[in-house]
C-alpha cells in the first residue's frame, strides 16, 4: 500500500527518534506523566473510582498530548528547512507526498509505541477486576487517532517555518482550539453571543467530543470519518505547502 520511498523515509525518521535523546525523553515523560495523572489522589483517580476501567487514564490523554505531541512533530520539516537538508532529500527521486507521508507515519508510529508502552496499566486493571476489553480497545484506538490528528496539524506548522519553537507554539495553539472547541465552559461562553447553528458546527468539529464518544466503547462511523478527514486535510495542505515553498 505504501510506496517504496515512503517506507524508506518512514524507517529513517522512526529511527531518528532514537538517534538522540528526544525519543527516550518523550517516552519517559509521557509514561511517567500519564501514570502519575492516572493514580494521583484526586477525585478522578484510578483507585478512588472503584471501577475496573481505564477512564482515569484516557481522560488525561488529550491534555498530555497537548504539550508532548507538538514536541514530536516540530522537527519533522522545520529542521530539514533550517539545515537545508530538504534540498538533499527532495533532489533525490522522492515525491513530496512520499516524504510528507513517510515522516508523518514515522511520528505516528512513534507515539503508537509510547501508547503501547502503557500496557502494564491494562494488565493491572485485568488483575484487579474484569474490565470491558472493548472499551479499553476503543480507548486506545481513539487515543491513537487523536495522536494522528494532532501530529498532522504539527506536520503542517513544522512545514510552515524554519523555527522549531515557532512550529511548537503554533501547533499547541491550534490543537488547544480544536480541543477547547468542545469543552463545556467554552461552549457555554460562546453560546451567549453566537447563533445556535454556529455552536452546533463548532461542537461537531471538536476533537474532544469525538475522542470521548469513541472512548465510551461505541464505534460510530462519524467519529472515524472525523479523524480520517482531519488527518487527510492537514496532510494534503502540508504537501501543497512544501511543494510550493521548499526553501
Amino acid at each position, binding site marked *: 500500500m505504501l510506496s*517504496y*520511498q515512503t517506507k*524508506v523515509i518512514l524507517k*529513517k525518521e522512526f529511527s*531518528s527518534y532514537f*538517534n*538522540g535523546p528526544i525519543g527516550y525523553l518523550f517516552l519517559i515523560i509521557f509514561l511517567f506523566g500519564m501514570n502519575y495523572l492516572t493514580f494521583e489522589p484526586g477525585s478522578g483517580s484510578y483507585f478512588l473510582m472503584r471501577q475496573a476501567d481505564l477512564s482515569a487514564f484516557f481522560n488525561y490523554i488529550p491534555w498530555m498530548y497537548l504539550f508532548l505531541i507538538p514536541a514530536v512533530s516540530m522537527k519533522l520539516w522545520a529542521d530539514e528547512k533550517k*539545515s*537545508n*537538508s530538504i*534540498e*538533499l532529500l*527532495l*533532489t*533525490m*527521486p*522522492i*515525491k513530496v507526498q512520499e516524504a510528507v507521508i513517510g515522516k508523518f507515519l514515522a511520528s505516528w508510529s512513534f507515539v503508537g509505541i509510547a501508547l503501547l508502552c502503557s500496557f502494564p496499566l491494562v494488565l493491572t486493571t485485568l488483575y484487579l477486576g474484569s474490565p470491558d476489553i472493548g472499551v479499553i480497545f476503543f480507548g486506545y484506538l481513539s487515543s491513537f487517532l487523536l495522536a494522528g490528528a494532532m501530529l498532522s496539524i504539527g506536520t503542517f506548522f513544522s512545514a510552515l517555518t524554519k523555527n522549531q519553537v515557532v512550529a511548537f507554539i503554533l501547533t499547541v495553539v491550534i490543537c488547544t482550539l480544536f480541543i477547547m472547541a468542545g469543552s463545556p465552559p467554552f461552549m457555554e461562553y460562546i453560546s451567549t453571543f453566537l447563533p445556535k447553528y454556529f455552536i452546533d458546527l463548532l461542537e461537531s468539529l471538536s476533537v474532544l467530543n469525538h475522542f470521548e464518544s469513541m472512548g465510551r466503547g461505541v464505534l460510530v462511523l462519524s467519529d472515524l470519518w472525523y479523524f480520517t478527514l482531519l488527518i487527510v486535510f492537514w496532510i494534503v495542505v502540508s504537501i501543497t505547502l512544501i511543494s510550493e515553498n*521548499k*526553501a
Partner: protein
Amino acid sequence: MIEVKNISKSFGAIQAVSNISFSLEKGDVLGFLGPNGAGKSTSMKMITGFLNLDSGSIKVSDFDIETQRTNAQEIMGYVPENAPLYEEMYVEEFLYFIAEVRRISIKERAHKVEKVVRMCALINVVGQRIETLSKGYKRRVALASALIHDPKILILDEPTDGLDPNQKHDVRDLIKDLSKEKAILISTHILEEVESICNRCIIISEGVMKYDGTPSEIKSKSSTGSIEDVFRAMTLNENIEGVSLC
C-alpha cells in the same frame, strides 16, 4: 545529457535567473562562474528539480524536469551549497540510507558504500556521527552520497568552498577522474579551479548569461591572459585595461 532552454526564475520582485540556455554532454566539465548572488545556485536548484521553473524547459537525458522529475533525479547526483547532511546520523548509516533511497539492492549496498568510502577517503570516519566531522569531511560525505548510485550526471554547487588547499586538490583530482564517464556541472567563484578542471565555462551575472565558451577563449580576451580581469569586466560591466570583450 542536459538541455537547458531559456529558464527564468524570480522571487517576488527579484529576477534571480533570466533566460539562461546551455547544454552539457558526457565528458564535459562545465564551470558555472559568477559573483555571489548571480543565480548559479538557483539555476542548479532548477536543474535538479528542487525549484520549479517560471518559464523555459530543462531536459535531463530526455526526461523533462517538470513532468518526469523523479526519472531525471535518478540519473543525477547533487551536492547542494554548503553540503547539507543529516547531522545526527552516523556516516555509514547515512550512506546506507542514501543507497536505499537510490534503490540499490541489499546485496549490492555494502559494496557500493565501501566503494564511495574508499573513493572519498572516508575510511577513518565511517563510524562517526556526521555532526562531529570537520568541514572537509562533511563535504566528502556529501560527495560520496552523490556518487553512490554512479550517476551519469554530477552537479556540484561550490564543491571546494571552505576546504584547505590539500583537500581542494583532492576534490579536483576526483572530479577530473570522474569526468571521463560523466557530465559534470560545477559552480564556483574560484577562477583557478575553472582553469584546472573545466573544459567549458559559463559566466553569469545578475541572472543573465554573459559568456559560454572554453577557459582558453576567456584568457585570450585579456592581453595579459588573466581570467580574473575578463571576469571582472563581464560581471561589473566595466572597462578593464587590456581586456577586449568583442
